[in-house]
């Protein structure tokens, strides 16, 4: 994972936000979900997941809360805040723009 880090930076944030849009989740849940929906393209290790989570929390887009899990363990669950939701919508739009533009550029060549 040496090269695609730069690409991942924005992508990972977007993927986390998208995951939390469906339902609040804890760290492991988020990592599992991302691996699942991208069909294993992105394997998110804790080394990149935790810094990303804390960065997003710091920006106020997501919020962490300590709760009891089904198994009775205390876990920190993250949920999307209102600003986070707005951000997600905004980022989705710009991603689509980028994708369309890139697609056109590549097919024209």
């Amino acid at each position: 994972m040496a090269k695609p880090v730069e690409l991942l930076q924005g992508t990972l944030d977007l993927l986390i936000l998208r995951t939390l849009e469906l339902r609040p989740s804890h760290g492991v849940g988020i990592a599992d979900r991302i691996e699942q929906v991208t069909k294993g393209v992105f394997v998110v290790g804790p080394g990149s997941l935790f810094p990303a989570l804390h960065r997003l929390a710091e920006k106020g887009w997501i919020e962490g809360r300590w709760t009891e899990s089904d198994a009775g363990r205390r876990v920190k669950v993250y949920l999307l805040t209102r600003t986070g939701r707005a951000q997600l919508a905004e980022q989705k739009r710009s991603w689509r723009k980028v994708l369309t533009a890139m697609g056109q550029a590549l097919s024209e060549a």
Partner: protein
Amino acid sequence: MSLISRAASLLRRLAHRRRMDDDLHREVQDYFNAMVDRYVAQGLSRDEARRQARLRFGGTMHVEQEVREARTGFAFETAARDLRYAGRVLWKSPGFTATAILVLGIGIGAASAAFTAVYSVLLQPLHYRQPERLVTILTSAGGPVSPADYLDYRKQSADFEAMEAAQAWGGVIETADRAEFTPGLQVSAGMMAMLGVRPERGRLFRGDEDQPGAQPVILIGHEVWKRRLGGDPFIVGRTIRVGRRRYTVIGIMPPGFQFAPFWQTEAQIWIPFDMSSRVEDRFGRSLRLFARLRPGLSVEQARAEITGIAARLEKLYPASNTGVSASVTLLQEKVTGPVRPMLALLLATAVFVLLIACTNIANLLLSRSVGRRREIAVRVAIGATRRRILFQFAVESVLLATAGAVAGILLAWRALVLLSHTLPVASLPRQGEIAMQPWVLAFAGVVALAAGLLTALFPAFEATRVDVNEALKDGSRASTSRGQFRLRGFLVTAEVALALLLLVCAGLTIRTLLSLSAVKTGFDSSRLITMQVFASSGSDTSEKRNGLFQRVNDALASLPEIEQASAINHLPLSGDVWNYDYRVPGRPAPQPGHEPSAIYRVVRPGYFSVMKIPLLHGREFSPADRLGSMPVIVINEALAAHQWPGVNPVGRSLYVNVANGEPGVFTIVGIAANSRQSDWTGDVDDEFYLPYLQQYASWGLADLAFVARTHGDPQAALASTEGQIRRVAPMIAISKPATMEQVISDKLWRPRLTAVLLGVFAGIAVILAGVGIYGVVAYSVQRRAQEIGIRIALGATRAKVLGLVLRGDLIPVFTGLVIGVVAALLTTRWLASLLYGVKANDLFTFASVTAGLTFVAIAAIAIPVWRVARGDVLASLRTE
């Protein structure tokens, strides 16, 4: 995220760091446990599951660290940690730290003190309203202007909002118990309003208060109010006696107010100037003009206008105005002009001292960083990036530099206090304004930071280029890289070059001071004391004043410690100089503008013998030259040679237009040897002396400078005489009591100060350079002790080995000497205006300075080398 919420979250983070770290730790641990659980669920044993999870995880601590680094406050936390670490490191090597702080302190202190002086005197705007629009108008020779010319400039010019005039004045302020002379000014009524300074109490002059018949009013300075009038809160509206008149005090000027700024700077009382009797006067040039430019106009435009008017006046009034043009100068420039070169030189040398100090610090840090290679290597090995280590080094240096800056500011402050005590009163323009200000502190801060970073980065870059494996190997010698040798050589070269440059400047200014001190005054200043004595208001006729001065003279002469006493109107080298036109009877009248003139002096009998000014021909004045006897005059050698070359003019006569007396013909009775009267280094002026006892009625002099030759220590005599004089004349005012040696030394304050400060700076530079060279050589010799030992053990002679080592170290020294000499040759031209009796490229100075510095450098090299060479070969082989 807004800036405010970002700052808030930063503060929260810094405040709750501990709790947040716990929180994070728990969260990461949870994640880890969940993974372990998952592996267990997949059928692994618990131990194996842990192992797998750890592999996948890559260390929980590492993850936590990455989160911390992603946080906003991370840089702060690191910096704080680095700062603590740096503090510990510096504390652990107190020798190094103290040396570094001292050296930096000297450098920063010198630069800050010099910058304080430059800022306070040169850069800081004058304390008037919009000073950038204030100009002074003088004759083209820089002298005062006549009242009629002033009125014409004022009427005919359009470029000025206001134009006002000032004339030197002063008087004895008499209170119930004491009389004291206070310098002051007569100013046209609009002057203070034009300057735009509000009085501390009361009001300024009204426009009609300089008209004839107006009530006498006076403005007084804060100082006079506090010190002489006891700070009387109801002083405004009361009257005070100054000289022979009483004035109503209308206002007190604020503390620190100074006017005029470039002449009569000690003025503390101001009265309106009634010019009505002199509106036609074009000969009595006694006014300095001050004017405020209209907004947007340049000094050049105003200059063109005024010189145009002056040219017209010259044509209209050839008798008075031939050859008299005008000059218009920005006030700030006029004030600071005379000391600009000196202060610029001081600042430049102080910066050089700072540079040398920085070079030394860089050298010290370099040596240290080599010693710390293992520490660095360890930190690199456990994962520190080069950037982190560089940052750590920078923090350490900045901490050092900050300590140096504090030391420097304290030093500068002490130095400035010392300076203000040693400078003669009112010699440096705006002397009272020299003070540490926020600007100066900011300057010191910036200098310290720049010095810290610059000195840190060179060695740190070198030091972090570490081969970890090499450095960690236990037995390996911490060898010095080629780059470091080159850097050290460069530092030595720079130090030597800078030190040489400073030494040359110091040498030149010291030789200047010596030549100036060797100038012959024409009189004997040893055991000579002087004081200015002002007649009291009770002596309201010239007859009474003559009697008073006679009593003072007798009282002085009768004291056991006094040999002989006399008096003169203007003391040589410190008093005013007044020129008077004269003519030689029987010769054709001179062209207008070319009338011969000479400085006039009025002296009491015995003046020449008290001063030991020899009379080349004839006699000096005696008590018999009194009112009503034949008018006599003594002229100096220069005037005699000028008008009667090769002839003894005793017995001839001179026509002098004496102020209030009848224009008269005087018989020359004596020729006095030349003596220095005002200009220290220029040509001796033509002068004539008149006898006071014969002339007192015409001049109305209210003060005389008494001079007396003492038997013993003049300082001791000075202390006792004042009381003795007051016994015969209690209400006289006495000012400027001093020994003549002091008067002369005050005259030379500028070259002396320059020479002393440059001498000190150069001395520091040489010591620092010597220590720097010593450090470099000692270090490299010590590094090579083993090699030297082997060479000697193998049979090389000591001399040969020494030559080998010396050659390497001498090259940068000689390069420095050459660069220094070239730089000095190129730059000392700028000193020319500060030099006297020595050329800017004076061979003797250059040669002796170069020789001296070479000697110091060789000593600095030879001592460590000799130590190693003398030492036990086996011992040096065994080191490490």
